[in-house]
Every structure is written in structure tokens, then in C-alpha cells.
């Protein structure tokens, strides 16, 4: 039987290689029961492979993990009995209707015929899919498909749910809906392991975050701790004239240290330990004739955290090999 533990997931030294590539290269994770835990990293960092190992779809080459107290290799069946997975691809059957998909999953989980139908209708209603219930899933929008996918994962409420990039490709409105669902599930007591490449998503939802890059956890902690590890804060400056940004960058680099250029061509930020130093930086900018539209002192964004940890921005790797492709080639 499982030992009582407050950890829903305990993984040590997980390794998985596909051919020459070590997709996961010694991952340790400790996820508290009842939390939303974010696994954050760019495409190809090893997130999907990690989740697939924990969900018993892939056998690790090395290392161990216990999910809800059960070993993922020796007690894989017990793990499957308590978790559910919402994969990166919406894992629903396109040739069936939404309702049929949910009835099928209900039957497979052991619900009786009548109860499976009843449960399907209940979920379709809760997820705003009643109108589309009789339509084939291939005609669903991305957001509807994702909601159906998540509802298929809770036909029987799991103790732990794996969510692999649940909002990738969704419009902001559908994304907010998925976030609401995740929050509702956490409130209902389900532990959630959330893989994402969106920094604000992890920031919004997660109690704890592991930053993963090249198959390794490179940082771990609460969103606040991660930000603090980069520096106590950051000075954000927006200039009136984007042309002056190179000059501002030079000055702030000299006065304060690491400078991060933001997507807005007139904005930049610099890591900054305290407000006195920040005031000096601002004063130095105006002395040099750099005109400032506004400035603020705040915590660094997770974007900056990622840059500081890895030396490259979070989303510049998208062209590199995606994890699922590697797996098919294995």
C-alpha cells in the first residue's frame, strides 16, 4: 500500500533517451498534494517526455518516481487508477461526437451504461458543450476541443491530473476559460502537474515551479523565490524615443548590471537590488539626455528569470526538435 505522504509526485534522477538525444537527463521533482505545480520550459526541453514517464506511458531509462505513493514502473496500474492525462494533442476521438467520447471514457472507467450517459451530460453542461454534444469532434473549435479533452480527464475525478500545454494554440478567451477550470479543479482538491512554455501561465496558476531546460531542472521554487533568486527586483523603464534604447542600455548596464531588452522597442529593464540604486540609474539616464516616458520598480518577470537562468530567452528554441517527434523516431 502507499505510504501516507504529502507529496503527490516524488521523482529522482529520471532519465530518458531517444537514440542519441537525452530528452530527459536526470529530473528530480517534488510536488505537494493539492498544489498546482508548473513545469516550465521551451519546446524540446523534456517536459512532455517527463509527463509521459510520470503518467506511465513511457518507461524511464534510469531513475525512480512515485506518483501518489505508487512506483510508476512496478505499480503502473495503480498509478493509472488515480491519475488522468490531458496530452499536448487534444486526446479525443475526432470521428465521435463529444457526448460519445465522454460516454466511452466513462464506460472504460467502469461506469454503468446509464451512469456514463448521465455523467457525460453533466460534464457537457458544466463545460458549456451541451449545444455541441451531438456534433463530431472534428468540427469543434480548438477551445471546445480542449474543454472536451479536460472534461474527459475528469469523468472520474482524478487525484492527480497531468496537463501538457493545455492552452497552446488557444485564443485568450479560451485560455482564460481553461485557467478557470484549472483553478476550480485545484479548489476541488486535485493535484495538477502543468507543463507550459508560457511564463505568465505558470505565474498565474502554479504554487511551485520547476524550470526545465535541455532535460534538466535548472531552478525550482515558488514563483516568488524564483524571481528573488535572480535579484531582488528590476527597474523597468520605457523611453519616449526607441532610438535612445541602445544608449539607455549602455548606461543601465554600467550603473546597475544585467539589462534585458523587452519586446516593446522602447522598453528595457535592469536587475536592481534596491530603490537607491534604481534612483541613481534614473538620474544618470536623464543627465545623459535620455528621455523617459515612465519607469517602475518591480519584481522581475519570469521571462527575465528564464533569461538569467539559461542565458537564452524562453521562446527562442521553438525551431528545434519537438519532444513528440523525437519519441516517434525512437
Amino acid at each position: 500500500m502507499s505510504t501516507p505522504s504529502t507529496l503527490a509526485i516524488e521523482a529522482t534522477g529520471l532519465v530518458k533517451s531517444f537514440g542519441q538525444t537525452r530528452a530527459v537527463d536526470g529530473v528530480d521533482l517534488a510536488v505537494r498534494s493539492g498544489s498546482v505545480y508548473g513545469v516550465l520550459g521551451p519546446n524540446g526541453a523534456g517536459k512532455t517526455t517527463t509527463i509521459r514517464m510520470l503518467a506511465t506511458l513511457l518507461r524511464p531509462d534510469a531513475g525512480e518516481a512515485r506518483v501518489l505513493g505508487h512506483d510508476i514502473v512496478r505499480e503502473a496500474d495503480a498509478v493509472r487508477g488515480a491519475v488522468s492525462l490531458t496530452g499536448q494533442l487534444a486526446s479525443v476521438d475526432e470521428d465521435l461526437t463529444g457526448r460519445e467520447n465522454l460516454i466511452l471514457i466513462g464506460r472504460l472507467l467502469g461506469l454503468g451504461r446509464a451512469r456514463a450517459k448521465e455523467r457525460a451530460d453533466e460534464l457537457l453542461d458544466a463545460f458549456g458543450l451541451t449545444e455541441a454534444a451531438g456534433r463530431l469532434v472534428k468540427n469543434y473549435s480548438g477551445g471546445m476541443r480542449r474543454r472536451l479533452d479536460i472534461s474527459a480527464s475528469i469523468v472520474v475525478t482524478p487525484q492527480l491530473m497531468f496537463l501538457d500545454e493545455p492552452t497552446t494554440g488557444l485564443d485568450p478567451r479560451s485560455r482564460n476559460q481553461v485557467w478557470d477550470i484549472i483553478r476550480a479543479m485545484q479548489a476541488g482538491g486535485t493535484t495538477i502537474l502543468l507543463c507550459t512554455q508560457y511564463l505568465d501561465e505558470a505565474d498565474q496558476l502554479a504554487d511551485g515551479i520547476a524550470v526545465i531546460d535541455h532535460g534538466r531542472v535548472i531552478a525550482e521554487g515558488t514563483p516568488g523565490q524564483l524571481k528573488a533568486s535572480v535579484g531582488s527586483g528590476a527597474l523597468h523603464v520605457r523611453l519616449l524615443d526607441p532610438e535612445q534604447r541602445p544608449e539607455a542600455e549602455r548606461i543601465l548596464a554600467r550603473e546597475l548590471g544585467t539589462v534585458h531588452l523587452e519586446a516593446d522597442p522602447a522598453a528595457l529593464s535592469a536587475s536592481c537590488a534596491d530603490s537607491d540604486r534604481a534612483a541613481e540609474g534614473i538620474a544618470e539616464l536623464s543627465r545623459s539626455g535620455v528621455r523617459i516616458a515612465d519607469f517602475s520598480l518591480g519584481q522581475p518577470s519570469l521571462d527575465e528569470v528564464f533569461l538569467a537562468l539559461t542565458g537564452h530567452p524562453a521562446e527562442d528554441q521553438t525551431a528545434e526538435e519537438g519532444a513528440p517527434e523525437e519519441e516517434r523516431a525512437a
Partner: protein
Amino acid sequence: MSTPTTRTQTPPDADAAAVRKAISSAERPPRASTGAAALSFGWRGMLKIKHVPEQLIDVTITPVLFTLLFTYMYGGAISGSTGAYLQFILPGTIVMSVLFTTVYSGVALNTDITKGVVDRFRSLPIWPAAPLVGAVVGDSVRYVLAGTIVVIVGLVLGYSPEGGMDGVIAAMALVVLFAFGLAWVFTTVGLVMRSPNAVMNTGFMALFPLLFISNAFVPPETLPSAIEAFVDVNPFSHLVTAARGLMDGAAEAGDIFLVLGEAAVVTAVFAPLTLRLYRTRA
């Protein structure tokens, strides 16, 4: 024209309170038994036939065309008359029709993998082979339909089974049994290939020569000796011989047992291979 359905275009949202309620109201039932899980997948196969009937049309139109084409184009030349040739080739066209259908077992499995549905099935607490075994239910319906369509076309064209309808049914049963064995070959292919289309092309590219270099459409005595030698060892020839025997009312037990043995060997090799690949690679 007044439209009563002036609904707003935006779909209703997922309601967080309702979601919370839906989560709290679900109890975990006892696990589905092995049989119940497989049957649920069988139901899924039937639904797919209902929602995507095109897959049946693809598979049956070719044999129907071939039956018509061969009978009227080559019948006179090969057998002296179209009627005599139809008597000869109909068992072969049934074999062709049903065996083509087996490729779709691999295509369907590959589609499930590339679309990600298999991930969900594999993460459920069910017998791991249930999706594959359950698919057999849907497959058998397809096989029987594919075979039946050819029989009907044959009867309309004037085919008369010497072995009576019993013989036709027995032949069909034998062909379907053999198809179950062959389907495992294509599920294996379905697990190795990268796309459903690749599975389809590979399947048809393998089936076409094997079906044509058999005794399905021509008597092998007329062939060059090297090809005749191949035809004689081709398992598809053995199946055609046995089916023809049953439909002509002149079946030999040895022919039938040979086919059953071959189907058993193919199953014994490829069913475990499929299951193994499914568990490790899908």
C-alpha cells in the same frame, strides 16, 4: 424568413461553479472488467462505421469494379465466356475485398496514435490490449460487409454457388478468420509507420502483388514456371483455393486446415509483436 435561432455566436463558457460541482459529484466506480473494456472499444468501432461510412465505400468499390472489369473484359479470353469466368473469380474477389479491408486496421491504429487518442487510452486503468482486441469487433463488421457486397454483385451478375449458400457462408467465415490474422500484420505496420497515409500505401503495395500473383484471377497452369512456383506457395492462393472449394461444394479438408494454420502462425507472430510495440512505442 425569420430565423428563430438568433443565438449569439459566442459559445457558452465553462462555468467554474458547475465545474467544481461536476468534480465533487464523481465517485470512482470499480474498474471495468477486461471484457467490458474490450466491448466498449467495439462500440467505438461501430460508431466510427456509422459516422465515417466513406471508409467502407473506399474498400468495397475497388473489388466491385474489378469484378465487373475482369468479368466482362477478360472473361471471354480467359475462360471462354464471362459466365464461366465469373464462377472462377468470384471467390478471389471476395478474398481481395476482405483482405484490402485489413489494411484499415493499421490505418485506424496509426490515426489514433498521431491524433493522441492512444495516450488517453494508455493512461486509463484498463487491460492494455483492450483497444486492439475491441477493434476486432468493428473490423469483423467491415469484413463481413465488404465480402457480402461482392457476393451480392456476383449473384446479380449471375454467379451460382455450387456449394449453395452454406458454402458461401463457410467461405466467407474462412476469409474473415484469415483476415483477423492478416490484420495483425497491418497493426504492426501501423505502429511502425509515421502517418496513416504511409500505412495505407505500404499495405496496398504489399497486397496488390500478392493478390495478383496468386490463383485468384487466372489458373496458375498458364503461368511461367517460376511464377507458378510462387503462386503455389503464396498463402493467398491457399485461401483462394479453400474458399473456391467451399463455394463450389468441393472443399478439401486439407486446404481449409492449411489456411487455418497459416492464419494461426501469422497471429502468433504479429499479435504479440503488435502488443509489444503498442506498449512501448505508441
